[in-house]
């Protein structure tokens, strides 16, 4: 089971640290340029989507051959802060009546599930996309909801995990690719990532 963990100052793929020179948003850009590089839409994304996108790319790069164009793969993600990081940016564009220029490009990211859409668009995944918000990280809850997602017979594997972005430079993601009947997928495993 492949997994990735991205924190503000570190990137770990299947237990191996990826060397990075920067932190926060600059680190996400650095990793994009070094490891991805072919998707300029990345620069239009808000911080939550940049985080989720980088994590998903690093995760999927571990897969060979990389699966694209399928309805059999679901994207089910969780966090604590919803889209609040971008919500605050949008609020800034409307807070002042004298400087009132609501931005559609910022507003479109004021929904947490947009990252599940970004991953689907990038990889042509037509399967389930779901986003749920928890009061705090809860490996048991994530585990149970993902296991139950396999009740949809179309779903053969799930990109899942925690993608939380409190502010531009305070974020954490852990993401894994779980196949149907994966025995090692347990709350303990999620906790260890």
């Amino acid at each position: 089971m492949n997994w990735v963990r991205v924190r503000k100052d570190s990137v770990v793929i299947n237990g191996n640290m990826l060397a990075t020179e920067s932190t926060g948003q600059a680190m996400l850009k650095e990793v994009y340029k070094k490891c991805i590089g072919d998707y300029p839409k990345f620069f239009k994304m808000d911080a939550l989507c940049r985080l989720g996108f980088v994590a998903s790319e690093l995760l999927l790069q571990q897969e060979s051959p990389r699966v694209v164009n399928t309805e059999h793969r679901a994207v089910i993600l969780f966090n604590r802060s919803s889209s609040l990081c971008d919500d605050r940016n949008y609020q800034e564009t409307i807070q002042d009546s004298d400087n009132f220029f609501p931005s559609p490009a910022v507003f479109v990211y004021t929904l947490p599930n947009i990252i599940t859409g970004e991953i689907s668009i990038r990889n042509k995944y037509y399967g389930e996309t779901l986003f749920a918000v928890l009061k705090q990280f809860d490996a048991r809850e994530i585990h149970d909801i993902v296991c139950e997602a396999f009740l949809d017979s179309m779903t053969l594997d799930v990109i899942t995990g925690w993608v939380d972005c409190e502010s531009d430079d305070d974020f954490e993601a852990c993401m894994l690719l779980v196949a149907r009947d994966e025995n090692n997928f347990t709350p303990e495993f999620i906790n260890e990532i």
Partner: protein
Amino acid sequence: MIVKIADNITSPLGFDTATNYAAVLEGRSCLKPHEDKWNVPEPFMASLFEDGAIAKRFSAIGGNVHKYSRFEQLCILSVALALKQVPHIDVASKRTALVISTTKGNVEALDSNYSGPGNEYLGYSAQMIAEYFGFTTTPIVVSNACISGLCAQIVAMRGIESGRFDTIVVVGADVQSRFIVTGFQSFKALSHEECKPFDINRQGLNLGEAAATVIYQKVEGENHNCWMAMSGAIRNDANHISGPSRTGEGSYRALRAVLEGVDISQIGLVNVHGTSTPYNDEMEAIALGRMKLDKTPINTLKGYYGHTMGAAGVLETVLSMHALDHGIVLATRGYEQCGTSIPVNVSAQHRNTSAMSFVKLLSGFGGCNAAMLFKKGGAA
């Protein structure tokens, strides 16, 4: 079988399902033009609660308006009225869960002028609502844009089907705010007039406030005269984060999944999203056509309520159930003349039906789409 044992709709049209159904049957709506509301510079048409209406009701049931935000009060009102119908439910049981569907919750708390209780975290609101009733399991907030209300019901179905829970309370709600209204305005997605779903002159959507609750429980067999949640599916367009797919891809695939092995002639209604934006309604018509549902009666309730976001999936499911209980396919308020490239079976009048199964369809930002199939127990 997973059956609905209680429900509630709390909207500007009324504070219980029966009142809402009666109002809709009369063709009423609370869509009104609002000027200078929340200091939004441009006027907008929306279905909003009267100022203070939620707090007044909340006080009347003994709630502390200084402790709970407007959003939390609205959720609690709706859940309380649904729970009242099933006093035997043990809310505190480890086998009972709460699933909340919302897109923006307390987002108005981000405004520097906000002086109400609570904060902007959805998990905080969820905890407040859960503690009010004494739920002991972790409340889940499903926040999946406009399809949240169906996703929440699908998550609930699965939680019961897997054996994890016996009873799940699903509440969907959103309150409107300067944040949401100006955002939709910046998208040029709002109509200045009452929305005209599927109509040739449709120009955009109206926003609305509401909460709705449905309580699901597992029962054996189908001889119970209750509405059953038969299947649900969520699919993505994999196309664009805000624009619907030109081929109705995700909606078509979601419909295909829930109707697998189902005789389409038995489906009495597809209650669609029908936001009244040019692209959404066109996309849905294409998806319905691809699924050979273009001759099946369809309707949308946006002309009565506007787009109630996190509430929509629950509210529209519950009202469709009540209408079919009365043998009625509700009229699509605002519709006059077919305005989609694939003609669909939509009507401005209420229609009679004897059908006892229907499909609920939604789509939303992030390219997400969801469908659910419902059937009444005891029906052929």
